[in-house]
């Protein structure tokens, strides 16, 4: 069945800097299960884009296949979307980015989509430092095919049917850090206060920004004994570095007292402020990020927040030294070398 969302919204809701209301960033009504963590993430994406005053059509959203990959329908309906094939969203995003460097690219994937069928593309898109945000909605199971364990299911985690997982999990965060992704963060779908600033920060990061978001599957993986349930995650969260993102324009009021944290200036002139609660966590320290993450894993804790960011990394376009304008804007005069050049080539083969 299809759902129609009411178009009514309160006339007093404020518009952002580019004249759009929050409503303009929403999508069709979700067909996921009530209470699904993914819907909260969709909400956080809407909020982040609204707050950042992104023109919806200047962002392209891409996904693979699975419950998570259905969500782009549920946010940013004024943006072009591409629901690709299972596990292969990174390659489509790579081509899209190559064609037009001027749009923002938001990829949404799941743990099956990224950690199993799409593992190859996931690691290679990290290597290329593609300028995109890559969100994994991580619930440790295959929802759309009714709850099979996924590769991120923790060792010993108990499924709804009562069976125990005997395989070691694939740790996407650890892997992204190991591969030197230029931005690695982790969050929880139930913590919008942390997630929204992280998405905003990721969207402003020039390079590959990975956010692993634990997102419980209320239908198949929210039982006692599961390590991806709401209850288990809440009990094991650890916050190293609550962050807020302050755009250059300083439109958004931050409710932290000034001067209490570390300010990090980003590429585009905006700033990231790390709360003093962060203690000694410096997100530019790669070795420390790896150590903190592995320590948390060893202790059975889930370390969330911005773990690592290399704000000086070169994006794929910079590495390829492509022209300043998008490749898709080039016309015959720029693409076609002409008959004189061709005659010279013919001459080389005579």
């Amino acid at each position: 069945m299809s759902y129609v969302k009411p178009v009514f919204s309160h006339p007093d809701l404020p518009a952002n800097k580019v004249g759009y209301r929050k409503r303009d960033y929403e999508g069709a009504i979700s067909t996921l299960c009530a209470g699904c963590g993914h819907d909260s993430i969709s909400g956080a994406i809407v909020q982040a884009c609204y707050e950042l005053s992104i023109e919806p059509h200047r962002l392209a959203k891409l996904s693979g296949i699975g419950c998570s990959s259905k969500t782009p329908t549920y946010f940013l309906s004024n943006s072009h979307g591409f629901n690709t094939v299972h596990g292969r969203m990174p390659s489509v995003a790579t081509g899209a980015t190559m064609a037009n460097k001027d749009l923002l690219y938001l990829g949404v994937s799941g743990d099956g989509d990224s950690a199993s069928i799409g593992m190859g593309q996931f690691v290679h898109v990290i290597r290329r430092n593609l300028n995109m945000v890559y969100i994994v909605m991580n619930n440790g199971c295959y929802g759309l095919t009714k709850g099979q364990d996924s590769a991120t299911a923790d060792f010993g985690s108990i499924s709804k049917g009562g069976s125990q997982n005997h395989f070691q999990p694939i740790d996407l965060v650890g892997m992204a850090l190991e591969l030197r992704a230029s931005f690695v963060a982790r969050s929880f779908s139930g913590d919008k206060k942390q997630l929204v600033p992280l998405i905003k920060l990721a969207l402003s990061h020039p390079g590959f920004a990975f956010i692993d978001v634990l997102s419980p599957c209320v239908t198949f993986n929210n039982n006692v004994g599961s390590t991806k349930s709401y209850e288990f995650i809440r009990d094991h969260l650890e916050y190293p570095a609550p962050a807020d993102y302050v755009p250059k324009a300083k439109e958004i009021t931050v409710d932290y007292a000034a001067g209490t944290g570390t300010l990090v200036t980003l590429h585009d002139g905006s700033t990231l402020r790390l709360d003093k609660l962060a203690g000694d966590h410096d997100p530019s320290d790669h070795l420390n990020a790896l150590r903190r993450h592995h320590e948390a894993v060893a202790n059975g804790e889930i370390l969330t927040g911005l773990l690592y960011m290399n704000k000086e990394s070169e994006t794929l376009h910079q590495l390829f030294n492509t022209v300043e304008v998008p490749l898709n804007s080039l016309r015959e005069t720029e693409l076609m070398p002409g008959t004189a050049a061709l005659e010279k080539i013919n001459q080389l083969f005579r």
Partner: protein
Amino acid sequence: MSDANSRVNDFVIRFANVNGTGSASANGLFAKAIYRMGIPVTPKNIFPSNIQGLPTWYEVRVSEKGYLGRSGIVDFVVAVNPQSLEEDIASVRPGGYFLYDSSKPLHKEMMRGDIHFLGIPMMTLAMKNFTQPREQQLLKNIVYVGALAALLDMDMDVLRGIVAQTFKSKEKLIGPNNLALSIGFNYAKENFKCPLEIRVETRDLIGDRILMEGNLASALGAIYGGASVMAWYPITPSTSVASAFEKYCKRLRKDPDSNQNRYAVIQAEDELAAIGMVIGASWNGARAFTATSGPGVSLMSEFIGLAYFAELPAVIVNVQRGGPSTGMPTRTQQADLISSAYASHGDTKHIMLIPSTPTECFEMTAQALDLADRFQTVVFVMSDLDLGMNDHLTPPLQWDDDRRYDRGKVLSAEDLENMEKFGRYLDVDGDGIPYRTLPGTHPTKGSFFTRGTSRDEYARYTEKGDAYVRNVDRLTKKWQTAKEWVPKPEFFGEGNRHSLGLIFYGTTYYAALEAMDLLTEQEMGLDAMSLKSFPFPEEVQSFIEQHEEVFVIEQNRDAQMRTLLINELQINPAKLIPILHYDGMPITATDICAKIMAHLSVNALRNDAL
């Protein structure tokens, strides 16, 4: 043994080398010299799946009549590979010549009484005249080219001219190469009666044709055709398409002011990613293509189905090799027709353009980019190893500077502003081709969700049967429209006046045209048609209808083109006689003639018996 078989400008010479010993440049020098002497020539590399050490051959056909297919008969062997001596001696036709490195004597039991043995101590001569071991090995090859110049009466000035041109930027190599040529030349003059009965004479038969390989031509076609994104994964025999694209983009596609690139070449992690990147780039409005071979197409199949169903342009240059599986990776076949034509699950079909010459590789790759945009679908350029990796005598590449790219039905912000309602999959014009929009075009209009799942005319997800049927029937209509846009077949002979017809395509063209001459000499009347595309234009059906019996000549075991003809045009299978060749070596005219004659004589016997 006699030399009564005097052959001027009509012979095949085969070089037997060891892979990785620098023989390619010496052999190329030989072939180029024949070309510059104005004589039609076809060189073919017969190489192993190996970098160094295994036997490799280079076969050059010299043909005054201009036959550019493989002959299958070897008149002359130059043997510098001890590993393959026995095989090489056996390959020479009776009365032919065997030139070998006599630095070490041949085993007596290897000798044949019915061929001429010409021993030249190539390695000894090279060691005597050059000091560095690598230099000795490389120049040993030039020594035999010099000897051939004397034996075959080649123009030494032409050879020296090519040496000078080749080493223009490494001038100190010119002297040693010329010395090696002279050493070989003088040795042959002093020790053999030169020239031999087999020899060359200068002619003026080349015209303005060039000697180029198909993969380079495809790469240039992509550059001229406006591809700005190329994604690929290394696979023989397609790799040189990607390397040539990059090499020539560096020369032709730089912004002159900033020196920045107007292209991006991505070496993907596998073929799945390569086609994914192509589709992503096309979705976003850049012209994009990939080059691969059969195994790559197998891996790309899921994405190919997505591009077909979601209606996205994608160009795939399929340089076919021997299959199935890893098959014969360094041998040629035309065995990917069905797997490309119907690639992917569900009801799918894809446009294929089938070049026979490097010039057509150039034109068709450029045209494929237009057709992919026009039809918002996958277009294959069906090359093969023989065409892609061997030099072919071919008309010069030509381009019209006034030519504009056909970007197909893409709506601008203004178009969207002026229209009532945009339906991504709506057949507005009745040709089955809908309009599309690119991401970022308009703030509030024209956005939609591209997906591989079924959808209605407005790109809304649906599993309703009637909407699905409307959509896939529209795709069939689009397919019908494509028949009028793809390249037409080429006809040979005096029109459709005979009862027998020949159909061929791709590189089979060369041997088939020669076969037609041979059959005509035997007073057999034939008409011929070279296929250039799939879907089949109307002319294909009429040609078949106008002939009683049609031979379909191709280089695969299962008569794949014949299957496509039967399947798509509802031809009576009995009417289409398969003439097949699939040992991995290019097909020959003699093979075609023998198979056609065998079929006709069996039929004649059958008729007599009735």
